[in-house]
C-alpha cells in the first residue's frame, strides 16, 4: 500500500525493506525530489569507497529502545550523523560514551526519505586502545564503584581444606596443573571438578552458572571448602569470559571462598579482582589452596613434642617443690620438736617444785596452828624433833626435784647433740662448701671430678635423709600404710574395721588388722 501522507517517525530499521516509490511524472525541465535524491545517491555511491574508516569524537550518543544506536561523529569542523544496527551493536564489548575518540567502520549512504546522508556503522572501536581493553577498564570502574573489589568482602581461604571444587575446562593443561599441584602437596583431599567451557560464546554464562550451582547446592555434594575458577593462558579474547560482568557477579555472590586463576602471571581479569584471592597461574592456585602435607605433619609432631615436654617440665617443677617442702624446718630440723618438749619439761619441773614448796608451807602452817596447844601440853622435845624432821624432808624433796630436772636436761642435751650430728641441715652446707671449694680449685679438665663429687654429695644427701627418717622411726614413731595401695594412713578416712595395714618401724614392718576403730573428738 501507499505510504501515509504524513511522514512516519524516523525508523531506520524499515529503510532496507522499503520499496522505492515510482516517481510521479514531472513537468518538462524539472525533476522530482525523489529523482534528485536518487541522483545524489548514485553520485555518492560512485564517488565514495564501499567501506570507510572514520576517525572522530562520539557525541549525541543514544541507544534506542529497539537496540539500534544513533550518534554523531564530529571533529573540529564537521559532524557526521551515524546509525549502528542492533545486531552490530551487540558485538561491541565496551560501552560507547560521548566524548570518546573512536574509529567507525561502515559506509555512507543517503537516507532517501529525509534527503540526507548518513554513516552506517558496522563496527566501532575506541581509538588508541583496544575495544576489549576499554571494555575491561569500563567494567572495572563500574564494579569498583559498586564495591565488588572491596577487600572487606573478601573471605580468607581455609587453612586445611578437605573438599575443593574446580570450575574450569576438563581438558587442557590448567586442570591437570591444578590437580597435580594439589595432589602432590596435600593428598588427603577430594577434588570436585565442574566442567565448563572457558572460551567462546556462552562460556561466561556457563562459568557463572557453575559457580552459582556449587554455591547453592554445596550441601548436596557433601560440602566444599574452597573453589578454584580459572583456565590456562590465551589471548585476551580467549580469556574474555573471565572479564564478563555475569561471572564477576557470580563470584561476588558466592559464600564459598574463591580463588581466581586465569592465564599467566601478566593476565589480570575482572574475575581476579572480584575473587577472594588471585592466583597468578593454575599451578599457583593449587599452591594457594592447600598446605604441604609434610609441613603439616611436622607441625602436628611439634605439638605432640610440646605436650610431652610441657608435662615433663611440669613434673620436674612439682618434684622440685616436693624437695623444697621436705627440706622445710619441720622435716629438716627435728630439734624444734625436741625444743618444744624441752619447754614442757621445764614447766613441769617448775610446777613440781611449787607443789613441793606449797606442801611444805602447808605443813608448817598446820604445825604453827597446833604449836600453842602443844606448847600448853608441852611435849617440846617431841615437837622440835618433828620440826627438824619436816625440814629435812623439805630439803630432800628439793634436792630430788633438782636432780630429776638436771637429769632430764642432760638427756636432752645429749639427744640434741646426736641429732645435730645427723641433721642434714648442718652437715650439708659443710659438704657443699667443701665440694665448691674443691671445684673452684680444679681446672676445666677436672670439672668432671667436681660433677662426680656433686653426685656423691647428692647420694650423701639421700643417705642422710634416710638416716634422719630412720632415726625418727627409731625414736618410736612408725609409719602405717594401707596394705592395699600402700597409701600412708594419716586419718581414719579409708580405714574401717577389718582393714589390713602394714606398719613400718625402725628395723622392719608387720601387718595388722583394724579392730575397735574409734574416732577422736578432736574438734569441739
Amino acid at each position, binding site marked *: 500500500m501507499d505510504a501515509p501522507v504524513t511522514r512516519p517517525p524516523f525508523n531506520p530499521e524499515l529503510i532496507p525493506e522499503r520499496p522505492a516509490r515510482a516517481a510521479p511524472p514531472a513537468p518538462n525541465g524539472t525533476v522530482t525530489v525523489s529523482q534528485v535524491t536518487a541522483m545524489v545517491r548514485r553520485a555518492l555511491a560512485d564517488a565514495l569507497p564501499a567501506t570507510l574508516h572514520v576517525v572522530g569524537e562520539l557525541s549525541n550518543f543514544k541507544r534506542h529502545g529497539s537496540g539500534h544506536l544513533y550518534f554523531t561523529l564530529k571533529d573540529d569542523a564537521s559532524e557526521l550523523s551515524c546509525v549502528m544496527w542492533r545486531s552490530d551493536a551487540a558485538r561491541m564489548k565496551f560501552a560507547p560514551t560521548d566524548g570518546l575518540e573512536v574509529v567507525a567502520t561502515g559506509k555512507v549512504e543517503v537516507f532517501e526519505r529525509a534527503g540526507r546522508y548518513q554513516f552506517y556503522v558496522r563496527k566501532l572501536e575506541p581509538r588508541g586502545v583496544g575495544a576489549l581493553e576499554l571494555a575491561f577498564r569500563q567494567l572495572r570502574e563500574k564494579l569498583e564503584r559498586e564495591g565488588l573489589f572491596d577487600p572487606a568482602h573478601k573471605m580468607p581461604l*581455609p*587453612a*586445611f581444606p*578437605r573438599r575443593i*571444587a574446580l570450575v574450569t575446562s*576438563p*581438558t*587442557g*593443561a*590448567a*586442570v*591437570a*596443573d591444578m*590437580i597435580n599441584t594439589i*595432589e602432590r602437596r596435600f*593428598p*588427603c*583431599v*577430594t*577434588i*570436585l*571438578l*565442574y*566442567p565448563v567451557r572457558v572460551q567462546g560464546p556462552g562460556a561466561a554464562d556457563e562459568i557463572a552458572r*557453575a559457580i552459582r*550451582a*556449587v554455591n547453592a*547446592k554445596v550441601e*548436596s*555434594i*557433601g560440602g566444599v571448602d574452597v573453589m578454584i575458577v580459572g583456565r*590456562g*593462558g590465551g589471548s585476551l579474547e580467549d580469556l574474555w569470559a573471565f572479564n564478563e560482568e555475569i561471572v564477576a557477579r557470580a563470584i561476588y555472590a558466592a559464600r564459598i571462598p574463591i580463588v581466581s586463576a586465569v*592465564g*599467566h*602471571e601478566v593476565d589480570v581479569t575482572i574475575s581476579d579482582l572480584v575473587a577472594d584471592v588471585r592466583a*597468578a*597461574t*593454575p*599451578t599457583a592456585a593449587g599452591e594457594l589452596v592447600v598446605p604441604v*602435607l609434610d609441613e*603439616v*605433619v611436622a*607441625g*602436628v609432631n611439634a*605439638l*605432640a613434642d*610440646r*605436650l*610431652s615436654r*610441657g*608435662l615433663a*617440665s*611440669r*613434673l620436674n*617443677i*612439682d618434684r622440685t617443690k616436693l624437695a623444697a617442702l621436705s627440706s622445710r624446718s619441720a622435716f629438716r630440723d627435728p630439734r624444734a620438736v625436741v625444743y618444744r618438749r624441752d619447754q614442757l619439761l621445764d614447766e613441769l619441773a617448775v610446777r613440781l617444785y611449787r607443789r613441793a614448796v606449797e606442801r611444805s608451807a602447808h605443813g608448817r602452817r598446820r604445825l604453827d596452828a597446833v604449836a600453842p596447844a602443844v606448847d600448853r601440853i608441852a611435849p617440846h622435845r617431841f615437837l622440835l624433833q618433828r620440826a627438824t624432821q619436816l625440814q629435812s624432808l623439805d630439803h630432800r624433796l628439793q634436792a630430788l626435784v633438782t636432780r630429776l630436772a638436771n637429769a632430764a636436761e642432760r638427756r636432752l642435751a645429749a639427744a640434741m647433740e646426736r641429732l645435730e650430728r645427723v641433721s642434714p641441715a648442718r652437715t650439708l652446707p659443710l659438704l657443699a662448701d667443701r665440694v665448691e671449694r674443691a671445684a673452684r680449685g680444679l681446672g676445666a679438665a677436672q670439672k668432671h671430678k667436681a660433677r662426680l663429687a656433686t653426685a656423691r654429695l647428692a647420694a650423701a644427701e639421700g643417705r642422710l635423709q634416710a638416716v634422719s627418717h630412720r632415726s625418727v622411726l627409731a625414736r618410736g614413731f612408725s609409719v602405717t600404710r594401707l596394705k592395699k595401695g600402700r597409701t600412708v594412713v594419716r586419718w581414719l578416712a579409708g580405714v574401717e574395721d577389718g582393714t589390713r595395714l602394714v606398719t613400718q618401724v625402725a628395723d622392719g614392718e608387720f601387718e595388722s588388722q583394724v579392730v575397735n576403730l574409734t574416732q577422736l573428738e578432736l574438734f569441739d
Partner: protein
Amino acid sequence: MAKKKLSFEEALETLEALAEQIEEGSVGLEESITKYEEGMKLIAQCRQMLSQAEQKIQKLQERADGTLEAKPMKRPKSDEPAAR
C-alpha cells in the same frame, strides 16, 4: 572435654591451647595429665586425618531437576605443555 569430631583446624587450635596451659603450669598436676591425654588423643586424630591419602576426583554434573550430582572420574590428562 572437647567434642569428638573436630575439624583439623579446630583440633590444631585446641592442641595449641592445651600445650600452652601445660607449659604455663596454670593448671594442677592432675589436670595437666588429663590435658596431656586429651592432647595425645587429638594428635592421633590429626595424624589419622592426614593419613587419609586416598585422593578422590569427582565430576559435578547438573541433573535435569537442577540438583547437582558428583560422579567419580578419572584424572584428566594434560594434552598440552603445562602453563608456566
